[in-house]
C-alpha cells in the first residue's frame, strides 16, 4: 500500500463491484492513482478490466462501491472537470457516415473542450481525417480513437486496450504520445493485456483476475518480489550442497564452474554465502512483466 496522503490521488476506486444478474463482473476492486501517474490495469480477456473502467465512469451501474475522481463522486464533477476526462472504449466504434474530422469535432464539442490539437496528432498517426470512417481499416479507426483520447489535452485519460489493431510502428507512436501527454500533466489509466506496452509506459500496475484485483504495486516492486534467475561463475565451484542450502535457492543446475539457480526474496543470504568464494561473474536475470504476470495465473 502506498503511504501517500489522500489528496494526492486523482482517481480513487473503492470496493467497486458489478454483478450482471447473478454473474460476477468485478468484486471489491480497489485502487488509487496519483496525479501525473501512468497506471496499468493488467489482465487477460474477460478478467474484468473493461467492466472496471465502465463502472468507474458510470457507463454501467455498479452494484456497490464508489469511484472518486478529483476527490469527488462522478455525479458531483463540474462540467469543466468532466471535460478534462477522456475515455477510449475497448470496443471503439464511430459513426461510419462521418469523416474523421467531423467525428472528432463532434466529440470535442460534446466535451466542451477549449484546446484542440487534432491535426498534429492525426499527422503523427498518419491518419487522413477527410475520409469517411466507414472506408477506414480497423487500425485506422483505432488511430481516430488515439487522436480522440489526447486531442483535448485531458487531465485524465482512461484508455481501454488503446493499441488494439495498430501496427508496431503506430503502437510505438502511441507510447510516445502517451509519454508526452503524461509529461504535460495527464494522468493515464491504461487497461491492456499487451504486457510490453504496460511495462514501457506504466509505473504501477494492478493485476486483475476473475474480477478481483490480486496485486497493485510498482512494477519494480513486483519484479523484486518475483523469482529471479541467477548465474554465478566461480573460480572454484563450491559443492552442490553448499549452494542448495542457501535459503530460497531452487532449481540448481551446475555446469563446469557455473551454478545456475532461481531464488525468491532477499539476496542477503546469497551474497554472504558466495562471499566466501572467488566469484568471476554474477548475472541476475530479471523476469519480464509477462513472466511476473504468469505467476499470478
Amino acid at each position: 500500500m502506498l503511504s501517500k496522503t489522500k489528496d494526492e490521488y486523482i482517481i480513487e476506486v473503492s470496493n467497486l463491484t458489478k454483478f450482471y444478474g447473478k454473474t460476477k463482473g468485478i468484486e471489491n476492486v480497489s485502487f488509487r492513482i496519483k496525479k501525473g501517474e501512468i497506471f496499468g490495469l493488467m489482465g487477460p480477456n474477460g478478467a474484468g478490466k473493461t467492466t472496471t473502467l465502465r463502472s468507474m465512469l458510470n457507463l454501467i451501474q455498479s452494484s456497490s462501491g464508489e469511484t472518486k475522481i478529483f476527490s469527488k463522486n462522478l455525479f458531483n464533477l463540474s462540467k469543466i472537470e468532466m471535460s478534462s476526462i477522456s475515455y477510449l472504449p475497448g470496443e471503439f466504434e464511430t459513426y461510419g457516415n462521418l469523416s474523421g474530422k467531423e467525428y472528432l469535432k463532434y466529440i470535442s464539442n460534446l466535451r466542451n473542450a477549449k484546446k484542440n490539437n487534432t491535426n498534429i496528432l492525426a499527422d503523427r498517426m498518419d491518419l487522413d481525417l477527410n475520409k469517411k470512417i466507414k472506408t477506414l481499416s480497423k487500425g485506422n479507426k483505432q488511430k481516430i480513437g488515439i487522436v480522440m483520447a489526447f486531442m483535448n489535452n485531458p487531465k485524465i485519460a482512461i484508455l481501454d486496450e488503446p493499441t488494439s489493431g495498430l501496427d508496431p510502428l503506430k503502437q510505438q507512436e502511441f507510447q510516445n504520445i502517451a509519454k508526452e501527454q503524461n509529461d504535460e500533466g495527464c494522468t493515464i489509466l491504461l487497461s491492456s493485456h499487451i504486457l510490453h506496452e504496460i511495462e514501457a509506459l506504466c509505473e504501477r500496475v494492478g493485476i486483475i483476475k476473475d474480477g478481483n484485483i490480486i496485486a497493485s504495486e510498482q512494477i519494480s516492486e513486483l519484479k523484486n518480489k518475483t523469482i529471479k534467475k541467477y548465474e554465478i561463475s566461480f573460480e572454484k565451484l563450491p559443492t552442490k550442497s553448499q549452494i542448495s542450502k542457501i535459503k530460497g535457492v531452487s532449481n540448481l543446475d551446475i555446469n563446469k564452474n557455473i551454478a545456475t539457480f532461481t531464488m525468491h526474496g532477499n539476496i542477503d543470504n546469497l551474497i554472504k554465502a558466495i562471499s566466501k568464494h572467488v566469484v568471476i561473474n554474477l548475472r541476475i536475470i530479471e523476469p519480464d512483466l509477462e513472466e511476473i504476470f504468469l505467476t499470478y495465473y
Partner: protein
Amino acid sequence: MFRNVYLKNLRDMRNNLIYWTIGITILGLYVSYAYSSFAENLDTWNELLKSFPEELMHFFGGSEVMDMTTFAGFLNLEIFGVMAPIMLIIVGINSGTHIVAGELNNKTLEMVMSTSIGKNKYLFQQTLVMITRIVIISIILWGNFFIFANLFNLELDLNKLTAIMFHLGLLSLSFGSFSLLIGSITGNKATTLGLSAGIAVLSYFINSISPMIKSIENLKYSSVFYYYKHSEPLINGINFESILVMLFVSLLFIILSFVAFKYKDLY
C-alpha cells in the same frame, strides 16, 4: 452541425428526409392525379363503397362519414386510413428505436456518454430530434396535398388537413416514444423494433375489430388509433380530447424513458 447531439442527428437525417420527400411527392401526385381523373365517376364509386359491409370498410380504415365525392373523403379513406399512419408510425418507431437501442447496437453510445453531456441532456436532445423528424415529414405530407390539391383544382380544407396532421403526428410520436421506452429498458434494437411494430399492429386491430363486437367494444379506448381517427379530423377538424390523450401517452412514455435510461447499462 456538430455542436451538439441535436444538430448532429438533424444533419444525419438529411438523406433520409430527401427520400421521404421524393416518396411522398410521388404518392401525393399519383393520388391527386388519380382522383381528378375519375372525378366524373365518383358517384358510382360511392355506391360501390356503400355496398360493402360496414365492418369490412371499418377494418380498412373507412368510417360512417366515408364519402368519395370529395377529395377530403377520398384522402380520408385512401391515405389517412392506413397508408399515412403506417408511414408515420415507421418514422416514429425508427426514430425512437435509434435513440438508445440503435446507438447501443452500433456501439457508438458509450463514447458519446463518456463526455460531459450527461444522460438527461442526451435523451432530451434525441427526443427533440425524433419530434423534429415527425414534424418535418408531417409538414412534407401536408405541403404535398396542399400543393397538389391546388394544382389539380381539388377542394381541400386547409384547417382540416392541418388537423389530421396533428393527429397523425401525435400517433407517430406515441409509437416513437413507446419505442424509446422499450429501447431504454432493453437496449436491444431487434427487440425494440419487433415489440413496437407488434404493438402497432395489435393497436390497429383492436381499433378495427373491437367496435364490431359489443362485448369488447370498450377495448377501442386502449388503442392509440382510436384517438387518431375516431373523430375524423379531416372531415370534422381537430379533436382536442384525442390530442390530449395522445400527448399524455407520449409524454408518459418519454418520462418513463428518462427513468429507465438513467439506470441503463451502456454496453
